[in-house]
């Protein structure tokens, strides 16, 4: 039987383009804020799970080599985890596993990136494609997701406006989140429609910004939780599922890997009707249209109903299943930290500490992440009550 585990401390840096801190300096800031958040000291941490997205995004290599001391990993175990865009989610899950295994009692998960350190992020991005089969099109991220978007819109009879509605919802939510990068007052559908087309059918408004940020979470075993905090977020389930890239009959607009992850996560958390039993959801919407597709993968609605769920207003802050009250990845994307931000935001909602974008009375919250060729999905569900 695995040890019960809770999140006891969270540390975030603001998402922005920042020239005041080096990469270790950025990790240091998130680390110190997480320690301060729960009143722990460096020596209280037994092990560190460390994340960073593909190194070529910022021209470094093997950064845990010189960032270890910045996150307190001196003379203690350090594990590097790497799964592309969802790395922050995989790191949080790895830290959870370390504690759940019973081998460690208090473990730090930390992940981040400084995406502004290249003037050619798309070259770095194109290196994640197979050099022989794929990199020839130097697709980068926007155009790969644009292909997913055009498939989704045409398959279900939706149009550009459905993605832009997500952008408007999340950008307005972000105004309430001091850690978000894009905080634009009076953001309207009309304004979003007038932004330039970058990769049809995706406009500038459909895309995330490039951020420098790090996020840290501290996980503790049940018997240590009480002494650290009286307001933990219990881990109800943690799941990571990978699907293939270009397998037989893959439908880019129907993420079976996410559906599988969601079914496992709900089963382990004892959730039968996710739309009713979850109080808030944070999804990794690096591009607006993806939020609609993830609604479906997460069974908040049926396949093909994502656009209509958006239209209904149910996923707004005041709706019955609010999605991305923080503004989501669409308003802050460092890649390395983004999937952990989704988990940390879900945990904060459960703790009732999300500030201005807190949803009232949250008892169960889900945080999601995706990475790679829209293929690696991570899910964590947190609860106010001990499982």
């Amino acid at each position: 039987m695995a040890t019960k585990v809770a999140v006891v401390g969270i540390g975030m840096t603001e998402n922005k383009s920042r020239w005041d801190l080096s990469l270790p300096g950025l990790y240091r800031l998130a680390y110190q804020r997480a320690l301060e958040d729960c009143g722990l000291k460096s020596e209280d941490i037994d092990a560190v799970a460390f994340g960073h997205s593909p190194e070529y995004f910022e021209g470094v290599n093997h950064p845990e080599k010189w960032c270890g001391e910045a996150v307190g990993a001196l003379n203690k175990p350090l594990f590097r985890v790497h799964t592309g865009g969802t790395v922050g989610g995989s790191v949080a899950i790895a830290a959870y596993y370390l504690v759940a295994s019973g081998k460690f009692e208090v473990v730090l998960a930390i992940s981040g990136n400084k995406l502004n350190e290249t003037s050619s992020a798309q070259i770095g991005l194109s290196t994640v494609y197979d050099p022989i089969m794929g990199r020839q099109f130097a697709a980068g991220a926007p155009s790969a997701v644009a292909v997913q978007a055009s498939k989704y819109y045409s398959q279900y009879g939706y149009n550009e406006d459905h993605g832009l509605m997500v952008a408007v919802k999340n950008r307005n939510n972000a105004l309430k989140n001091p850690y978000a990068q894009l905080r634009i007052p009076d953001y309207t559908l009309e304004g979003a429609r007038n932004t330039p087309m970058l990769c049809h059918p995706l406009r500038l408004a459909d895309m995330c910004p490039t951020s420098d940020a790090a996020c840290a979470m501290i996980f503790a075993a049940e018997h240590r939780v009480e002494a650290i905090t009286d307001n933990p977020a219990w881990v109800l389930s943690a799941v990571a599922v990978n699907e293939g890239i270009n397998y037989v009959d893959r439908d880019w607009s129907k993420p079976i890997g996410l559906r599988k992850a969601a079914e496992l996560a709900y089963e382990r958390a004892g959730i039968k009707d996710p739309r009713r039993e979850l109080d808030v959801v944070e999804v990794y919407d690096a591009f607006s249209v993806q939020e609609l597709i993830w609604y479906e993968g997460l069974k908040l609605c049926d396949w093909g109903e994502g656009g209509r769920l958006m239209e209904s207003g149910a996923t707004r802050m005041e709706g019955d299943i609010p999605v991305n009250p923080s503004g989501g990845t669409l308003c802050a994307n460092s890649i390395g930290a983004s999937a952990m931000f989704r988990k940390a935001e879900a945990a904060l909602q459960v703790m009732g500490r999300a500030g201005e974008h807190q949803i009232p009375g949250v008892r169960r919250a889900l945080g999601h992440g995706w990475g790679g060729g829209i293929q690696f999905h991570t899910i964590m569900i947190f609860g106010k009550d001990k499982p």
Partner: protein
Amino acid sequence: MEIVKNVKRTCYVPYHWCYGYYNTLFFERLKEEKVIYGSRCTSCGKVVVPTTAVCARCFAPTEKDPVPVSDEGYIDSFTIVYLPYPGQPSTPPYAYGMIKLDGTSNLFMHMIGGVPLEEIKVGMRVKAVWNEERRGDFYDIKYFQPVKD
């Protein structure tokens, strides 16, 4: 005294990537025969392009002999790229997409051309336009051009 903000440099790393048997076969035949080859899964019987050793859905080996496939199909999804960035295959705006070649069960990524960009639609029939001079790479096919049904 100045506090230096950042250090700017360019990294250059050369590589020699090995194609392996199936990728070599795919590109050699593209060049020599002007034919796209795929592989048939011994379990589900479906054909995937390019040639490959294992079906990514069943994990079963593919048949030993590669299968020639049609250079016609339809657009499963596409994008028009307006955003310029270094290393692009063409000057924006240009279109590329996922193409479902007739008789195959996965998607083949390539450029879409020979048509005004605003006329491209999901579901359109397309056919490969070949380069007369072929070097054994993806651009032995110039692009896929829409054709009448």
